[in-house]
């Protein structure tokens, strides 16, 4: 596949070989300084002994990792993160896809409906989370006020009796803000499907669900896969929702990896352990992503 560059103009060919690198240089430099160096530094810190002031005092081997993995909180935090990621990604994918199927019908007001679905996507998470924190408050929350004025409940209901209940609401909020992204990517996939497939299937007497599983889903799958992979990464790393509503409290029972490491680093002065948590989180995501990449590469070979 190697292209033999013409030998008559060596100067020109050298310029040609270098040219693409000049074009990508600004981008590479930007990412090198602000992404690659921080990555390197986090890995370096994860194997270093760090003073409370954040200074590296020496090599610590895997001590930070063993401290993190040995702490009683960590398994809880890891479990929370897995529950959080799977629940938010799976449910928002299913609900977002159903919403896309609905919006793919032609009806009056569809444009308005689409515009409304944009709202949670465009709103910054910290504001969305603040709104939900207010809605579910026991004493003066909007949900209790609404249900009382509708006559559904007589007295205030405590929607968050346990930390787990708080966490469930945080998951609900996560689903709420993730649905639009899935919905719109699925919708752009749906709209590129040729309607003749459905016409043919209808002539053959296929039911709605047969069409859904045999035509729609396979054709929308590429769009949904992209959305799902991006969502796994974003949801896994999502910080503002949990931080705004509970800060991971009490006693880490609503912590995910990112809120946990934020507290370790900036509240407890344990930057080495925080870096170790970062590395663990990255390794988990890397495994997930390579599974995806291997599967898409295989698809490319077919």
């Amino acid at each position, binding site marked *: 596949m190697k292209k033999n560059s013409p030998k008559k103009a060596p100067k020109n060919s050298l310029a040609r*070989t270098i040219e*693409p690198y000049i*074009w*990508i240089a*600004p*981008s*590479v*430099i*930007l*990412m090198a300084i*602000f*992404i690659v*160096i*921080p*990555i*390197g*530094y*986090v890995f370096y810190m994860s194997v270093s002994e760090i003073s409370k002031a*954040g200074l590296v005092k020496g090599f610590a081997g895997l001590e930070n990792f063993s401290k993190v993995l040995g702490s009683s909180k960590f398994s809880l935090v890891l479990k929370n993160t897995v529950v959080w990621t799977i629940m938010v990604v799976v449910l928002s994918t299913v609900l977002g896809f159903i*919403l896309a199927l*609905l919006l793919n*019908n032609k009806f009056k*007001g569809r444009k308005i409906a689409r515009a*409304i*679905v*944009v709202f949670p*996507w*465009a709103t*910054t998470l*910290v*504001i*969305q989370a*603040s*709104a939900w924190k*207010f*809605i579910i408050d026991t*004493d*003066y929350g909007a949900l209790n*006020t*609404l249900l009382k*004025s509708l006559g559904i409940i007589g007295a205030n209901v405590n929607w968050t009796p346990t930390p787990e209940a708080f966490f469930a609401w945080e998951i609900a909020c996560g689903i709420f803000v993730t649905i639009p992204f899935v919905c*719109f*990517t699925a*919708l*752009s*996939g749906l709209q590129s499907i040729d309607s003749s497939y459905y016409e043919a299937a209808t002539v053959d007497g296929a039911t709605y669900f047969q069409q859904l599983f045999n035509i729609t889903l396979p054709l929308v799958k*590429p*769009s949904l*896969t*992209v959305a799902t992979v991006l969502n796994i*990464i*974003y949801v896994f*790393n999502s*910080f*503002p929702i949990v931080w705004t509503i509970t800060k991971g409290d009490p006693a880490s029972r609503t912590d995910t990896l990112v809120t946990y490491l934020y507290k370790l*680093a*900036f509240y407890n002065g344990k930057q080495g352990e925080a*870096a170790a948590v970062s590395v663990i989180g*990255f390794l988990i995501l890397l495994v997930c992503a390579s599974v995806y*990449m291997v599967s898409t590469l295989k698809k490319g070979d077919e």
Partner: protein
Amino acid sequence: MNDNIRVNWQKLLLRILLYFVVAVICVVILYPYFVMLCTALKSRAEIFSINGTVLPLNALWSNFVDIWKKAPMAQYMLNSIIIAGGSTAIAMVCGIPAAYALARMKFKGQTAFLGFIIVSQMFAPVVLLIGIYKVMQVMNLTNSLLGLIFINAAFNQAFTIWLLRGTFMSISAEMEQAATIDGCNRIQAMMKILLPVAAPGIVTTLIFIFINAWNEYTVALCLISTDTIKPLTVGINIFNGYNMIEWQYLFAASIFAIIPVVILFMSIEKNLTAGLTAGGVKG
């Protein structure tokens, strides 16, 4: 005859069901915004009263005015504009040539570069905060707008390049080649011929980056401690005190932070989703 009527009835019922379900979903989606607006119009006493009502008893529009006095809102907003604008500018200046090279040239390390872009997505700024903080310290950029601008620009590079590469690849290179034969150099060919054709894709990318930077919270929370250089997302938490939350002001300020972004987002939603999935399938 009878069959026809039955089919029509069925269609009508499905239609009604569709409208009903979509309407319910829209109401649920808008509910938090409705709550924010109603709360922003209430007095503090009314919010915390035992017999609260859904709608404000008498709408206190003055809350929307008060926040500009109670907090440096104008300053926060200006900071958000500077951060989002600056991040977008740097992300585009670095991203356009990179996307161009990926779409139009062949070079060693191309796949590696694309691979790195995907892997870089796995590192959210929050995971790297300790490292970012260190880099900022060394460059003397902690607690500065410029630092935030660089971070936002860098973490949005992947999306910028991803979206723009897709846009450029969907445009035929023939015109540019013809222009090169006529004596244009690559830069001229790109500026004069490719970029105008790619304008819709570029505008979509630009707005998307702007919104991302405008909405960014975590890095700003960690890096910025001086009140006068906080962006809106962090600044409005001035109403979110340790002991009491001034919900009416928090939500009034939030509405100012949301509106511009929602409008911008509506304008690009169609192009954006098409671009994201197209880039994904091709990449």
